[in-house]
């Protein structure tokens, strides 16, 4: 199907794209897209896919229905998810929680709406190519192909204007024009820092010609964030194309993708995409006859969060410990192998092709004046619709959590939302109407970060959350500078004291002081932002800290040292709790009152759930 002969020039690419368009127009009228990202596969999508495929064969509908295996659609709360798209009407309907046994009806009815399957939504997002006014908070640029095309087919990518931006750039533009377009577009680094991408490129472009490098930071280590993985699994060519464009802009011939080893599916799809692009002459020497050479190699990370910091990442690629160093010199001047290097995050790169195709002016219309474009968030925690969402910058937290996310699950009350992962902070109800951008979140003591957004309800203890993130930083500190290595350890000890009811008011004051010191004196971004979870909760949820300190009470009932389970007089001795206890710490003869051994109890609450007589109290 796909041409293996290298494309010799821009026209060859356009001809191919046009052919694909015609082929598609005369193809099956109905497309069923099946979400096959890591999470989809984990939620047992493969049997659904196989059932759909075998039904098409047995009902002989190969010419009417085409199945496309895509990356994540972002509807993680209802996996397995499929999208039934009607090519004539251009309408699509998303179905969730699909079971293999529903395949016969689905295939028989084709695009009809009544399948007895959960209809999730029709306007889940507004695709990048339409300017139509679709009623949805989501506008997709970064995720424009994710969940829509087959990531393992370069033809699918070329068919959606893939590599058109690269072709245009290398055959008609000068490197400084490309950089200028990026500066005009005002795209800011989506890895968390928010540094203008075009300016970064310009630094590297201004360095004397010679060996230069482009690095894609795909070491997504923030717990609860999986945007980059979704893009790499769902649209790998977009990242490769953008890397080639940035290589052209700064004068680099080599790109490196530094990817987490924990993402095997993303690695597999990237490797395949690189090979396909090479076969088609879209990577390698003399790309599309322009004289521009560019190739990409993969390097695996090995589970070090600090390697998200660019100098640490560069060390890791060089085969060293991933320790950050003092900047300047910035990598744009002295980076990989001491050569000018730009490091861009996956999501940042995924914006670039659209900007090059549609221009800086178009991009500036989306989002806010200071932060044009969109942001992808991994919405998780106690929200009804856990998933991957992409909204214009300046959208309020309320629109994301209560609009796209449809509010808090299990009828609980909203308490806080955490953004920015271990470097960010928690925001309260009062902050929900703040339009999101880098500055507004920083002003509230949090951070944009890479895009993890964790929603918390009244059952979550904010002191415990601060402790959790600090444990993460503690594990991930590279140990190079003292404030981060020792300071965070001391902070953690103080938080453990608070959580176990052994702290006093002086501890709280010390917490704040030490946090400020660590922020001011750490070497790299990891250390400088590590106290943020502590500072933000201390400021926003001071009452909870006071409850732990003064009353030795954890209102949310999370801090296990301050919680105990007891069996009350309603116990009839049914032994159900004792049989369910995972540590067998409940004793008592049948038909007699049972007792919990407080020493051995792990406070898991299984006994309380198991008891049919409300005989287990939690205090």
């Amino acid at each position: 199907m796909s041409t293996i002969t290298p494309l010799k020039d821009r026209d060859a690419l356009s001809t191919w794209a046009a052919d694909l368009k015609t082929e598609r127009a005369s193809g099956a009228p109905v497309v069923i897209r099946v979400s096959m990202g890591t999470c989809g596969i984990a939620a047992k999508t493969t049997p659904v896919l196989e059932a759909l495929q075998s039904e098409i064969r047995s009902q002989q509908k190969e010419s009417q229905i085409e199945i496309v295996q895509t990356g994540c659609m972002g509807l993680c709360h209802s996996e397995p998810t499929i999208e039934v798209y009607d090519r004539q009407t251009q309408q699509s309907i998303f179905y969730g929680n699909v079971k293999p046994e529903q395949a016969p009806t689905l295939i028989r009815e084709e695009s009809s709406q009544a399948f007895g399957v959960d209809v999730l939504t029709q306007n889940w997002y507004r695709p990048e190519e339409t300017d139509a006014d679709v009623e949805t908070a989501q506008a997709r640029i970064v995720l424009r192909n994710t969940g829509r095309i087959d990531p393992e087919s370069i033809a699918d990518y070329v068919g959606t204007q893939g590599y058109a931006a690269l072709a245009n750039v290398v055959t008609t533009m000068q490197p400084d024009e490309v950089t200028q377009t990026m500066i005009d577009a005002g795209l800011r680094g989506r890895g968390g820092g928010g540094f203008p991408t075009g300016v970064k490129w310009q630094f590297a472009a201004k360095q004397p010609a010679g060996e230069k490098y482009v690095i894609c930071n795909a070491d997504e280590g923030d717990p609860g964030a999986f945007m980059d993985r979704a893009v790499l699994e769902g649209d790998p060519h977009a990242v490769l194309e953008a890397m080639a464009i940035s290589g052209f802009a700064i004068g680099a011939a080599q790109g490196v993708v530094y990817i987490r080893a924990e993402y095997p599916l993303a690695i597999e799809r990237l490797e395949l995409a690189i090979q396909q692009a090479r076969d088609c002459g879209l990577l390698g020497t003399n790309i599309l006859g322009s004289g521009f050479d560019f190739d990409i190699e993969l390097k695996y990370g090995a589970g070090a969060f600090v390697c998200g910091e660019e100098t640490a990442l560069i060390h890791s690629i060089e085969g060293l410990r991933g320790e950050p160093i003092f900047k300047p010199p910035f990598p744009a001047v002295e980076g990989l192998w001491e050569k000018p290097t730009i490091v861009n995050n996956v999501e940042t790169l995924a914006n670039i092709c659209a900007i090059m195709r549609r221009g800086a002016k178009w991009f500036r219309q989306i989002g806010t004046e200071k932060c044009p474009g969109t942001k992808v968030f991994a919405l998780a925690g106690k929200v009804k619709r856990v998933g991957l969402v992409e909204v214009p910058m300046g959208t309020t937290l309320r629109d994301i959590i209560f609009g796209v996310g449809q509010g808090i699950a299990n009828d609980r009350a909203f308490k806080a939302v955490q953004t920015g992962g271990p470097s960010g902070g928690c925001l309260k109800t009062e902050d929900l109407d703040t339009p999101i951008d880098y500055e507004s979140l920083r002003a509230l003591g949090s951070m944009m970060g890479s895009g993890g957004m964790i929603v918390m309800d009244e059952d979550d203890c904010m002191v415990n959350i601060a402790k959790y993130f600090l444990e993460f930083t503690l594990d991930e500190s590279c140990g190079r500078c003292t404030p981060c290595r020792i300071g965070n350890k001391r902070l953690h000890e103080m938080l453990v004291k608070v959580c176990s009811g052994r702290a006093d008011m002086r501890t709280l004051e010390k917490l704040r002081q030490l946090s400020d010191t660590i922020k001011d004196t750490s070497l790299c971004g990891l250390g400088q932002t590590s106290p943020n979870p502590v500072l933000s909760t201390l400021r926003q949820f001071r009452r909870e800290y006071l409850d732990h300190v003064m009353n030795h009470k954890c209102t949310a009932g999370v801090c296990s040292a301050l919680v105990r389970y007891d069996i009350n007089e309603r116990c009839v001795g049914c032994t159900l709790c004792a049989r369910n206890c995972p540590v067998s710490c409940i004793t008592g003869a049948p038909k007699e009152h049972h007792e919990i051994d407080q020493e051995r109890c792990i406070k898991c609450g299984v006994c309380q759930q198991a008891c049919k007589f409300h005989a287990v109290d939690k205090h």
Partner: protein
Amino acid sequence: MLSADTKPRRTSGVRADSGLLNALHALQAEHGYVPRQEAMALSRRLGVPLARIFEVLTFYSYFRLEEPGRITLSVCDGTSCHLQEGPVLLKAIQALLGIGAGEATPDGAYQLNVVRCLGCCSCSPVLMVDDKIYSQVDPADLPGILKKHPPTAPKEAN
């Protein structure tokens, strides 16, 4: 401005080292961990001192220096799982198997690991047994899950 000590620790420009991480990945993929003998062989092959190899090995949490248990239980401690009873699940498994995180049972049957976010935040709390993901795991489900993955016999030594 910078003292000699804080001067960037850039490499001596030995590009042969850059293959080190990928080589270690290959060893771990083959053996399940990086055996000392193999690390020594790698040191001779690449001409990189053994101390440098161990410096790198011990820095990255992904690399293991000891043979892991034959069935790996990975408890997710990403933020979403942490908020939704992940820590309780971990404690329950620890109590059940009598081992701590990062340890193997004495018979080498099970390996217990804590991992940072498997990206399945809608399924919290998540337990992964080898490659199979169990979602919304309750401590009471554990014996049943372990029964589905009975201990296997150790591999014959060569």
